């Protein structure tokens, strides 16, 4: 089991425990003629616990029944992919994530158009490391296109800038 899988497995079991407990205590299981709100979540929680443990057992069995080298190879291959590329892909992903999060944060606060501009510009410059002129051009075109499409053609309700209205 790789490190990621390990964490995921533990999270699954923990989640199962939490859900089962919460369903039992707060949501009530009800009686058979009328299962309560907690019935289904409780079953899900228990299922998660059981399946999580099962997963762990399967991984354990797999590990011990295999020759150690094979197992190691799989891990090593994954490791190489990560280390040889350096940090750049990881950084790229983090920047993309942060930029998208910023978009969500700004969307209602500064309005659709401005936040789209910020997002696109940020993406081009930070994630893609484009030159600033090309970034601005791409940003302007995309933002204008999206604005036209959603505001005028589809008449979707989108937040406008509170500073102006």
């Amino acid at each position, binding site marked *: 089991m790789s490190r990621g*899988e390990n964490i995921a497995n533990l999270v699954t079991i923990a989640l199962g425990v939490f859900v089962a407990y919460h369903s039992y205590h707060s949501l009530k299981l009800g009686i058979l003629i009328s299962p309560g709100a907690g019935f*289904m979540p409780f079953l899900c929680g228990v299922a998660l616990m059981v*399946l999580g443990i099962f997963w762990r057992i399967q991984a354990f069995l797999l590990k011990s029944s295999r020759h150690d080298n094979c197992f190691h190879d799989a891990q090593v291959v994954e490791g190489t992919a990560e280390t040889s590329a350096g940090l750049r892909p990881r950084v790229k992903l983090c920047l*993309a994530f942060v930029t998208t999060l910023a978009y969500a944060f700004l969307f209602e606060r500064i309005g659709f158009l401005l936040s789209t501009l910020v997002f696109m510009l940020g993406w081009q410059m930070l994630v893609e490391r484009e030159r600033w002129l090309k970034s601005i051009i791409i940003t302007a075109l995309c933002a204008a296109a999206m604005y036209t499409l959603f505001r005028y053609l589809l008449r*979707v309700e989108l937040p406008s800038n509170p500073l102006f209205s």
Partner: protein
Amino acid sequence: MNIFDGIISGFFIALTPGNLLFAFLGALIGTAVGVLPGLGPAATIALLLPITYSIPSPVPAVIMMAGIYYGAMYGGSTTSILLNLPGEAASVVTCIDGYKMAQKGRAGPALGIAAIGSFIAGTVSVVGLTLFAPPIAEFALSFGPPEKFSLALLGLLMAVTLSGASVTKGLIIMVLGLLFGTVGIDPISGKSRFDFGVTELQSGFDFVTLAVGVFGLGEIFYNLEQQGSVEIVTTKVGQVFPKMADWAKSRLAILRGTLIGFFIGIIPGGGAVISSLVSYAVEKKISKHPEEFGQGAIEGVAGPESANNAASSASFIPLLTLGIPGNAAIAMIFACLLIKGVKPGPFLIVEHPDVFWGVIASMYVGNIMLIILNLPLVGVWVQLLRVPYGILAPVVILFTAIGSYSIANQAFDLYALIAFGVLGYVLRKLKIEAGPLPLAFILGPMIEGSMRQSLLMSGGSFLIFVSRPISLTIVALFALFVIGQFVFAVRRARQGPRIGPAV
């Protein structure tokens, strides 16, 4: 007026220039709506409803709205295949093999087969609608809570076939989906579950946000982490249309999908989703090379796509014959008819035969228009994939974000979208198939709700699920399926352990 007179008169109505224009407009708008994630046909029809007030006759209005409705079905498969973005529940299954085909450079054939399958399924089910509408509608009524429970459970079982290599992990994902489905106010008891004090969670998560986040956004996040430039179309775009071999493989899948979709689609509620699931599972089981499923098997696109189109055409049956809308988009069409003084129901065919036959005839016409629209567009769509990922990725994110936001106009949905994207990314990294998640999310509330309703009806007795003929049949199918799996697994174990590549 017998059926043939009706159909002929219907065609006279549908083929007038005005109505043809409305049909085309509807098909066009519908395709656009289907391609854009988040904007569903229901919302679009609602937006355009006031425009229909000024048109005196109900016929052109309904023709246009029907066009939007199944146009959206055609369009939904486009983004599923190209970008792993399902536009709605029924398109999720298409993502699984469709996107894989696109990654292997076979986006063209995938889109083409989806369009062709949809056309055949749509046309055949309209024929079915014409000939068998009233008795089928009555059949649909006999589906009460116990039947819906059994059917949804069957669907869930089928969803397990989407789980890829590890069944355990697939089941975990499925249970996770079920859990996500419980968030919000429980309709049977009125209690709010897992909302942790956040008001927006009281109405639960939205399907589009979840599916698009896990599939689409997750895919983008994963791709960004790959070194080198990401190219969705890895080989030269030579074959844009399906080859004869593709067609040979798919035609039976299309036929089966059509039948499955037609019958399951009549049932109000999750008709299209369940039918696409059942079709996928059936195709995988029947196939001589099931290991291809999940890796880009064209039957995995042809079958479910036909099923969901057949289902969406079939969902008109309860509307036109019983006056019962089966889903949100049909409900809007229902509202439009009522506003215009036309009461859909058993008397529709008598009181307003022009509406009844006109709409049905326009559905034939509409299907033809859509295939004419969509097939040439396949080349265009595939070209779209050549846009540099540095521009394509953020634009897709923008589209999905705006689409998600427009569902309830709350910023919360944006955060939820990102959170689901992270979940999708994690699943991709762990090489766990995300397919069962959105499907369990949709089916869970159906299963739970119908079960509790049935128990209330029966006074707590579980016998209700087997004492009724339809439910019994479905349960029997379910049992057969499970037993079959078991026998198969035992037989495989008996053959002894196989020395093969690592799982």
